[in-house]
Structure formats: structure tokens, C-alpha cells
């Protein structure tokens, strides 16, 4: 106990008892104690002078925080759809065999804890896992055997990594086995970029001129929602207030997305510079990068990039050489919550709270981080902004389609020979993309991740752009042999768990949809169940408070439209009602004990 109290005291003092640093405090306490127990929660609450239920609310909200011991080595194996396609559950068995405990448990000596986790941004190299913050990709049973042996011998997780990925994954501060898999470079993001040049040009213009160029470019937010970046900056600039913030949404959590990972690794200067340009445009002196907990392995490296940018004069006092423009960037870490990709939830989380979206109005442009006007933009949007300033808004607007200008970075994974990153011009068709990534035999493509839509072959001629098939970048190719309902089920389990729990339709509706889907999958469904599902999807989409609930029924909703046949093959035709209750299964155990044969005639 004495020890626990001391650890908490140290962690709390490291952050000056600042409630906005609650996530950092909890992360550090867990790293030292292997869990955040009730006793630790009440100690944190006491020392930070807040209510213990507020601390517990935060601990239980984030996936990587735990009240129970997570193990000296905490293995978080991704079990999202593509990882399952690539053999995640075989890998899970290997881990269980070697570690001597099941998933959801910790080995009896407390050494190894096995946990599942949602998408970790490695869909192009699954199955993948995070062990004590270190990424392990393309796992095989043999690799697992070696990893577990190393853990048992007490090697630090970082030292267990034996192979390294390409590009800057090999740099001293990353040293990771993650591969970039850049398959196609385009004119905006992966064209040569000379650090410092974009900000230098921006600060030679007035903030209004910068915003004007952004408006001319017609750049729309690259996270998926597609709100015009220039307008967002303009609103934030117009908002009254001395103090303003520019925030980079580095929480790409949509299953199948990993484009920001590659930006962070290869072109972080371009992104940070875009943030500085945004800061200059809206009148902010502080920027925040909210980095998803899964990308902890990049934090030291990104801190180093920032520090080099300060030395070069791109950040800090008189940033970019502009007298009076003082601008710097801090990194805030997430801790495993999909909903924090929603901008107001991200702000709540950055303030050290549960990542629950806020009601609007007020919009973040009016009252955002710490109550101040804030512009939250996507990682890729900031990179695009740097290029737009260098090449001009008109140059950018020449690419793409009427409603979607420029290029888009896609994260392609699943049943294709060349998974990875593709920078395409907006307007590219699904068919063209399938040919480039060598996924020609696909029977379905999940565009925009689970919250997007699942399209069938007849729609492969459609274009990727906001006016046709919108996407934040996730493209999952689903091959001929896959069971689409299994994929849908995986996505619905994901949403059910990731709902923040705030509003009724999302919190309850997704549970009900998941149950109904299981009923149909188990062969107990009727035509009426399909109609019910359709109606409930509409209710959840219409009545939910934020984008999560408004899109969470899409896996069911879009497959009911585009793949109705697979549902119809599962239901019992011509019947009004089929009982879900299986009498034979229910009495099986008791019959075995009594040595009788079940007599379930008439049930």
C-alpha cells in the first residue's frame, strides 16, 4: 500500500496535479503498477482533489487502461475484421499455448496478459499485436513462439524486435518492424517537400490570404466528413478570443485506416508545418497533436522531429522567421477509444476526461479546447495545406472531381496482393484501384471502413470522392471465399463496444442490432427480422447524437441493400416466427448428468 501511494504521488506531481493531464497520470500509474485498482483510483482522486467516480469514469472508458492486472507483458492482439481474415485466431491459439493462459486472462505468474483489441492501424501487415507499446506485425505461430520465449526470459519488449521495416521505421528513435508499404505516390503528399518552405511562404502572406488560398483549393477535411478546411479556419479566425488552438486529429481509428501512421513516419515535418500554417491563419500560438494510444511507438520520434523544427526556427518564437508569430506544438496521447476521432470527443479526451462528444452548438470553432476557439483538422488535411500554400489553391483545385479536389490517401488492405498506401486523384473508380492493388477477384469492397459502405461488384464502377463513394481512407477488399456476415458481425461488435454510451439509440440500438444479426446468422431469423433490422438501423442513424451512432448501423444497413441474398439464404422462409430457444441444447448438460436422452418432442 505504501508503495502504491508513493507511486501515485510521484505520477500526480509529475503533472502538477493538473486534471487536464488525467490520462497521463493514469497511464503512468498503470505502467508502474500493472493496473489501476480501486485503491489506486481513490488515491489518485484524493491527491488530485477530484471525485473518485470521475477518475474511475476515465479509467474504465479507455481500452488501454485497466482496473485489473494487465500482465507484466500486456499483449494486445488486433481482432478486427482484416486481422481475422489473415488468421488472427490461429495466432491467438499460439499465444495461449505458449503463454499458458487464455485471452482475457493473465498467466498465473502475472507475467503475460493476453487481450484482444480493436484495429491498431496495421491492416496491411496483419495479424499484428502491441506488446508493452511495441508493435509486432505479420505474426506467425513460429514468431509467437519466439516472442513468448523472449518474454519469459525477461527481455524488454523493444529488444524482442529482430527485423525492421522500411524507411524511417529503421531510425534509432522508432526501431520498429512496421512497414510503410507506400504503393503509389501522388502530387500532393508524397511529392518532394523541403521542410520549412511551406511555412516560410505562408508567413509572407497575411492570414486572410492563407485562408483565401485554402478556400480556392476547396480542400475538404480528410478524416471522412469532408467539411471545407478553409471555412473551418475562417470561422475559428472570426471567433472572438485572444487564445486559440489548432489541433491535429491523429486518432485514425476507423478499422482499415493506417494512412496517418505512414504520414507520421515519413513526412511529419509537412504535417507539423501544416499545423503551424493553420495556427498562423486562425491566430493560434499553440498546437496540439492528439496521437492515438496505438501509435505510442512513434511518440519519442515525433517529439524529436518537433525539437529539430524548433532548432531550425520553424517552430517556437518568431516561427518561420515571422516577427511576433510564436507558435509551438505539444503531443497528447490517447488511450484506445474509437469515438475520440470525433472532434469534440477528442477535445474532451485532450482535456483529461472521458472521450464523450459534446453537444453542438457551441462548435469547437466557438468553444473548443479549454473553452477556447479551436480548429480540429485531420493529419492529411494539414499535409495538404502545406502543399496548397507552396503550389497555390488553383493548382490543387485542378485535380479531382467537382466536389472533391486534390488527391486522397487510401489505406488498402484485405484480399489483395499489394496492400498499403495509395495516393490517388479523387474520381478514381473502385475497379481501377482493385487492379492497381491486385485484388481483382474481390466480391465486395468496404469503402470508408465499417462506418462507410459495403459495395458489391455492380458498383465497382463508382468513383471515390465525396459526391459518390466518400471515404476517410479505409478500403478493405473482401475476396470470394469470405463470409460477409462474419465481417458485418465483427464490425457491429466493434461499434457496440466503442459507443461512448451517452445516448440511448447508439448505446442500446447497437446491442439490439448485434443480437438480431446473430439471430439471423444462427438460422433463427425470418423475413420479419430483416424488416425489423432495417427499421432499427434507421432509428439509430436518425436519432443518435454524433457521427458514431449515425453511421454505426451501416455494416448491416448497406449489406442488407447490396447483399440481401446472403441474408435471405439464412432466414426461414414462409414462417412468421422462429423461436431462438433451443430446447435440446438447454437440457443437454442436465440430461448428461442424469444419464437420460433429451425428450424434446413438440418443442
Amino acid at each position, binding site marked *: 500500500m505504501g508503495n502504491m501511494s508513493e507511486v501515485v504521488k510521484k505520477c500526480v506531481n509529475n503533472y502538477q496535479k493538473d486534471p487536464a493531464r488525467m490520462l497521463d497520470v493514469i497511464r503512468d500509474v498503470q505502467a508502474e503498477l500493472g493496473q489501476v485498482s480501486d485503491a489506486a483510483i481513490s488515491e489518485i482522486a484524493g491527491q488530485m482533489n*477530484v*471525485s*473518485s*467516480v*470521475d477518475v*474511475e*469514469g476515465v479509467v*474504465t*472508458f479507455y481500452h488501454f487502461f485497466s482496473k485489473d492486472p494487465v500482465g507484466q507483458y500486456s499483449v494486445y492482439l488486433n481482432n478486427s475484421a482484416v486481422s481475422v481474415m489473415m488468421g488472427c485466431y490461429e495466432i491467438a491459439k499460439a499465444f495461449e499455448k505458449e503463454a499458458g493462459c487464455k485471452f482475457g486472462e493473465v498467466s498465473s505468474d502475472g507475467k503475460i496478459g493476453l487481450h484482444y483489441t480493436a484495429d491498431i492501424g496495421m491492416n496491411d501487415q496483419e495479424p499484428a499485436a502491441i506488446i508493452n507499446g511495441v508493435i509486432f506485425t505479420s505474426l506467425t505461430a513460429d514468431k509467437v513462439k519466439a516472442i513468448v520465449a523472449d518474454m519469459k526470459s525477461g527481455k524488454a519488449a523493444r529488444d524482442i524486435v529482430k527485423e525492421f521495416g522500411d524507411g524511417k521505421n529503421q531510425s534509432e528513435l522508432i526501431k520498429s518492424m512496421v512497414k510503410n508499404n507506400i504503393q503509389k505516390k501522388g502530387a500532393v503528399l508524397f511529392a518532394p517537400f523541403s521542410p520549412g518552405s511551406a511555412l516560410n511562404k505562408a508567413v509572407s502572406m497575411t492570414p486572410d490570404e492563407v485562408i483565401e488560398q485554402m478556400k480556392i483549393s476547396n480542400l475538404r477535411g480528410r478524416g471522412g466528413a469532408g467539411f471545407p478546411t478553409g471555412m473551418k479556419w475562417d470561422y475559428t479566425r472570426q471567433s472572438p478570443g485572444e487564445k486559440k488552438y489548432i489541433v491535429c486529429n491523429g486518432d485514425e481509428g476507423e478499422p482499415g485506416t493506417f494512412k496517418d501512421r505512414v504520414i507520421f513516419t515519413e513526412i511529419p515535418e509537412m504535417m507539423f508545418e501544416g499545423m503551424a500554417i493553420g495556427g498562423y491563419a486562425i491566430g493560434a500560438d499553440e498546437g496540439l497533436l492528439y496521437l492515438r494510444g496505438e501509435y505510442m511507438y512513434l511518440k519519442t520520434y515525433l517529439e524529436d522531429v518537433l525539437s529539430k523544427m524548433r532548432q531550425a526556427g520553424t517552430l517556437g518564437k518568431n516561427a518561420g522567421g515571422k516577427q511576433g508569430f510564436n507558435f509551438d506544438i505539444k503531443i497528447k496521447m490517447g488511450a484506445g*477509444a474509437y*469515438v475520440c476521432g470525433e472532434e469534440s470527443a477528442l477535445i474532451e479526451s485532450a482535456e483529461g476526461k*472521458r472521450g464523450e462528444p459534446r*453537444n*453542438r*452548438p457551441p462548435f469547437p470553432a466557438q468553444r473548443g479546447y479549454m473553452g477556447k476557439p479551436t480548429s480540429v483538422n485531420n493529419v492529411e488535411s494539414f499535409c495538404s495545406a502545406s502543399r496548397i500554400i507552396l503550389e497555390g489553391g488553383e493548382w490543387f483545385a485542378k485535380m479531382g472531381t467537382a466536389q472533391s479536389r486534390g488527391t486522397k490517401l487510401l489505406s488498402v488492405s484485405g484480399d489483395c496482393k499489394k496492400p498499403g498506401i495509395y495516393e490517388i486523384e479523387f474520381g478514381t473508380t473502385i475497379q481501377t484501384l482493385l487492379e492497381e492493388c491486385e485484388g481483382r477477384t474481390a466480391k465486395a469492397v468496404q469503402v470508408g471502413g465499417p462506418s462507410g459502405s459495403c459495395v458489391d461488384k455492380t458498383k465497382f464502377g463508382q468513383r471515390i470522392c465525396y459526391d459518390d463513394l466518400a471515404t476517410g481512407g479505409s478500403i478493405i477488399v473482401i475476396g470470394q471465399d469470405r463470409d460477409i456476415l462474419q465481417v458485418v458481425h465483427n464490425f457491429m461488435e466493434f461499434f*457496440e*463496444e*466503442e*459507443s*461512448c*454510451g*451517452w*445516448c*440511448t*439509440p447508439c*448505446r*442500446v*440500438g*447497437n*446491442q*439490439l442490432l448485434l*443480437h438480431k444479426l446473430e439471430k439471423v446468422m444462427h438460422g433463427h431469423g425470418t423475413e420479419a427480422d430483416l424488416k*425489423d433490422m432495417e427499421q*432499427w438501423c434507421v*432509428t439509430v442513424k*436518425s*436519432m*443518435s*447524437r454524433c457521427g458514431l451512432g449515425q453511421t454505426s448501423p451501416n455494416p448491416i444497413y448497406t449489406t442488407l441493400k447490396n447483399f440481401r441474398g446472403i441474408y435471405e439464404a439464412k432466414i426461414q422462409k414462409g414462417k412468421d416466427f422462429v423461436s431462438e430457444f433451443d430446447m435440446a441444447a438447454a437440457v443437454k448438460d442436465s440430461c448428461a448428468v442424469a444419464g437420460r436422452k433429451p425428450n424434446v418432442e413438440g418443442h
Partner: protein
Amino acid sequence: MSDIKFTIDGKECTAKSGQTIVEAAKANGIYIPVLCHFDGLKPAGTCRICTVKTGGRFMAGCTTPVAEGMRIDNMTPEIEDMRKQIIEMLFVEGNHMCPVCEKSGNCELQALAYRYKMMVPRFPFLWPKREVVANAPKLYLDKNRCVQCLRCVREIITTDGKNVFAVKERGGKTTINMDEKLAAGLSDDMAMRAMDICPVGCIIRKEVGYKVPIGQRKFDSKPIGSEIEGR
């Protein structure tokens, strides 16, 4: 007072700038059902039962400010059925046993179910395992009955600014959580306030049970909403 003109189901209404749709409707004698909303508290928008449609979009009436020229749909069959679904979802999500609940007759969820003529929910019951907290001296917390309205979270705060109630977990596991030490230190009035503000029978004040007998309670004589519609 009337600087904004708008309509609800075609009826001309006026409102003060800054009023929410729910407040403005009430001031014009029009009932929009609410459950998480409570006069005087910052709107939370958790239950979504006050959902209305305007400009082709659904929005929560309790958190959306009314605007000039808004044309609001309130009592359309589409919206009313969705509201009924919300009530049904709340019934299947928890474990609501009205006949044995001390709040019966004063319960807003029960009253809404009557108003919407809910016979049996269209959804299957989820039968969650929920905790009952009975070891705090003044309050008794039955999480089976919680509808996650967050009224207690917003209202019951200690004199030094600490939250007595907060939520924990997320998704389907989300539940209300009470700081037992802080709850024990609440004044008698504040403890009573916690029970009164709870729309259901989740927070119960100990030692004063059944003061008003069932049959003489708030919704036993008049249905919910009649105080607004009857004016």
C-alpha cells in the same frame, strides 16, 4: 419577448433568442416529451426522446436552439414511433419492475410508457446484470432502473465542487456510479434532491420510503405532458 418566429407542426410560435426548441415549445403550450432534460440544468441530450425534425434533419429539441423561420415537425407518426422505440429501448436495456418500484406513479419513464401506450417492447429484453448499492447511509442506488439521463451527474455536486455521481465504462456496459464517501456526506436536503431529480427509481432516499402512497402520486391522476398541453 417575441423576437423569433417559427412553427411547430404548422402552428405559428414565438420565442426568445437563445431558447432551446423544448423550452420554446413549452412556452407556446406545446408538449415535446423529455426524459433526461430537467428545467434549470444544462441540457445533456442523452435520451433523445425530444427528437424533432427540422430542415429534413433529426435533432434533439433539448440541445438545439430555436432559430428564426424554423419549421419543426413534432408529432408526426414517424417521430412519435421513433420516440416510442426510445422508451422501449430503455425498458429492455435495464430491469424495470414497476410493481415493486418505490418510484411507481412518480416515474417519468413509466408515465411516458403509458403516454405512448407501450404494451410490450418490440425489442428483446437484454437482462443486464446490474449492481445495487445499499451500503451508503442516505441513498440507495438501484442501477437496474437507471436510464443514464445524467441528471444526478449534473445536479448533485458537493459544496467544494466534487461530483457525487459519474458514469463508468462505455458502450452497453455504461452505468452510473456513485462516490459513496461523498454521498454519505450530503446534507439531508441534497440527498432528497438526488431522489427527486432522478426520473426513475434508481436513486432512492433511505428512511422516508413510500411517504406518498401509490395511487396519490404525480402521474396517478394526470398523464405526463398534461401540465403543458392543458393550459
